[in-house]
């Protein structure tokens, strides 16, 4: 496989394409079957391992002001050249250029599944926004560091283009992407734990295999002044679904959530609802799903005028093993719909 010459598409901005500076930053995407600007140095560094089959160029202002359109257009241009790897930049400390390179990387990875290599100064906002989607080589803050940046990017591009197993960010020279990857080590976990304990007891240096993340803290919203007028929705991570789990929400590591109509439903029974959740004993939730999603009690409160109204739909997913990224994505969509539907309060049940 290493004999095959890799196909590279290079993404650069209007400045490095020689079109012009700020006054030309609004040019829309174009593609040239040529090596352009920093592509010359890139071509030299790639040598016989890879060839630049096309260069996609876009103005930085255009890209940032027409993000979705620009991403789409750039992806389509790249797609037709069927590359093994895309190189974007280097962008150094140019903020909008870095963001554009990152956005290209995300779109290319999501839409085409092709890896992207870029180069940026660590403080470029493109690094934090898009580090998950690209292998970003650390550069200096200006084009003066071009000569150091390009060979590193070329080397990495060949490696990822060939699908070779990558070492750690330090070994390969890219900035940490924040992506966890499994690896087989020489020693089993228990012995690694024993050795880490010995180091810690003796005040010797040790490296944790998982640095603890810093969690977001969410401030509680203001209390509802008059609950008897409020429209209240039920949302759960306890996996309550109509019997048969029609949307096949996973028992663990949910990739989706469900939205179900409970107009006219005053009680969740064994025959009508169940849980899809694989992380707790489902027996009691299956007997009576109101235990997790209290529709029965809320209907009583609705009838008694204690709450204004129970929202017509409930939202549900399984919290079991579901990544925080997925959970946050679901929440964003669900919250937007609830707000649009005039819901004032949510009872969020977990298990």
């Amino acid at each position, binding site marked *: 496989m290493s004999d095959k010459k890799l196909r590279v598409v290079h993404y650069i901005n209007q400045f490095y394409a020689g079109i012009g500076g700020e006054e030309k930053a609004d040019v829309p995407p174009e593609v040239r079957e040529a090596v352009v600007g920093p592509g010359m140095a890139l071509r030299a560094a790639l040598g016989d391992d890879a060839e630049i089959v096309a260069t996609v160029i876009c103005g930085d202002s255009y890209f940032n002001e027409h993000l979705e359109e620009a991403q789409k257009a750039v992806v389509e241009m790249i797609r037709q050249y069927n590359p093994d790897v895309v190189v974007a930049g280097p962008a150094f400390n140019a903020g909008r250029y870095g963001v554009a390179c990152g956005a290209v990387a995300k779109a290319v990875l999501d839409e085409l599944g092709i890896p992207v290599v870029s180069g940026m100064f660590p403080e470029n906002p493109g690094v934090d926004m898009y580090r998950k989607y690209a292998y970003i080589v650390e550069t200096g803050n200006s084009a003066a560091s071009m000569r150091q940046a390009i060979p590193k990017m070329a080397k990495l591009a060949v490696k990822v283009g060939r699908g070779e197993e990558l070492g750690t960010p330090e070994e390969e020279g890219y900035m940490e992407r924040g992506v966890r990857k499994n690896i087989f080590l020489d020693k089993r*976990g228990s012995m*690694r734990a024993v050795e880490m304990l*010995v180091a810690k007891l003796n005040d010797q240096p040790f490296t944790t295999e998982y640095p603890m993340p810093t969690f977001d803290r969410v401030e509680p919203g203001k209390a509802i002044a008059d609950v008897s007028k409020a429209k209240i929705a039920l949302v759960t991570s306890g996996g309550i679904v109509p019997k048969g789990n029609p949307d096949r929400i996973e028992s663990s590591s949910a990739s989706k959530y469900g939205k179900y109509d409970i107009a006219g439903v005053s009680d969740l029974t064994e025959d009508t609802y169940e849980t899809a959740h*694989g992380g707790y004993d489902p027996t009691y939730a299956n007997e009576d799903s109101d235990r997790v999603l209290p529709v029965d009690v809320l209907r009583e409160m609705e009838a008694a005028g204690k709450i204004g109204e129970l929202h017509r739909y409930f939202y549900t997913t399984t919290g079991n*093993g579901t*990544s925080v990224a997925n959970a946050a994505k679901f929440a964003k969509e669900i919250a937007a719909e609830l707000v649009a539907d005039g819901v004032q309060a949510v009872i969020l049940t977990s298990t």
Partner: protein
Amino acid sequence: MRLELGNIFIKDVQFGSETKVENGVLYVNKEELLAELVDERLASIDVELAKPGESTRIVPVKDAIEPRVKVEGPGGLFPGFVSKVDMVGSGRTHVLKGACVLTTGKVVGFQEGIVDMSGPGAEYTPFSKTNNIVIIAQPVEGLERHSHEAALRLMGLKAAAYLGEAGRNVTPDEVVVYDCPPLQEALQQYPELPKVAYVYMLQSQGLLHDTYFYGVDVKQILPTFMYPTEVMDGAIVSGNCVSACDKNTTYHHLNSPIIHDLLERHGKDFNFIGVVVTNENVTLADKERSSNFTAKLVHWLGVDGVIISEEGFGNPDADLIMNSTKLEKLGIKTVCVTDEYAGRDGASQSLADSNPLANAVVTAGNANELIVLPPMERIIGDASADVVDVIAGGFAGSLQPDGSIKAEIQIITGATNELGFNKMSARML
């Protein structure tokens, strides 16, 4: 407590007219074994053999148990289940090393695993390397889930105890001696070395998330002390598996790797005093109570450091962090062993709870990482979409038309074991 562990290396398992061990081969009299396992809750029981390297898939796997027999000393294997509730962990025990009982049959919940005897999936499970006696049991019509689980649990333990008897009078290939003295004596040993203990967290969140200690459901215990050797006679028994990757099977408890590795370095790098067993109940009050008791007991032992192992994920992450932070605040250094749920792309945060005091962590890997398990020639159990698409780690469409399975490694029995049984880890890229 002084325990001699006599390992008899089993290279092969075969059916035969008599259950016996001869020249490293375990022969199994199938009829006699089946007769041992009769249970009114089980409608049918069958036995098959699965060996390393075969194109064989076993699914859904509930538990794995190593055959052992108590040769000398008080009590018997699996106290509270197949033996009376004597204190175990001293005397002499023989082990059929290389043999393993696996239990399978109709799904109890969502939460059972896959063992492939060859191919990429085999790399992730220890049970692709053992000669397996697979017991396939179907429940009687309408059997309630908790009774179903209890019947399967007992069946597996009985099978392992029955097979272990074959090693009673066999001369072991090796004998390892573990000597764990009572507390006062233990504390006086190796005065120049730091003292350490082990905090052994046991999952106790309900059906298929349970664990038993001398026959007691650990939901009902308060944290307590244990000699390291007690596990080697089956003091701790799995209540079958939740997410199969990180539920400790009974086999894992019998061979509890942190205990073995602490004993290995005992007297060289530290003085290993003993084990505190604790649980992972679901309510906050239970978590507070158990972590407070754990911190108190560890402090009481007077040790300088501990290893804490978690079992399961999500909800028990809170117990792990409580245990670690409460001990660190008492000045006791901790190392935590966990696994991760960082999403299929590895880009999400890995734990449901966190604290900067837990600064020494060993990870058994990201359970969400995807794997494709190629089709196998032989299936033991049930590899239909009804099972594969719904067990934890599977999803709609996991079972591919050609019989291969695309799923998270969560689906593989023991893949991210948090006792540190495996060599897998994860790193940041």
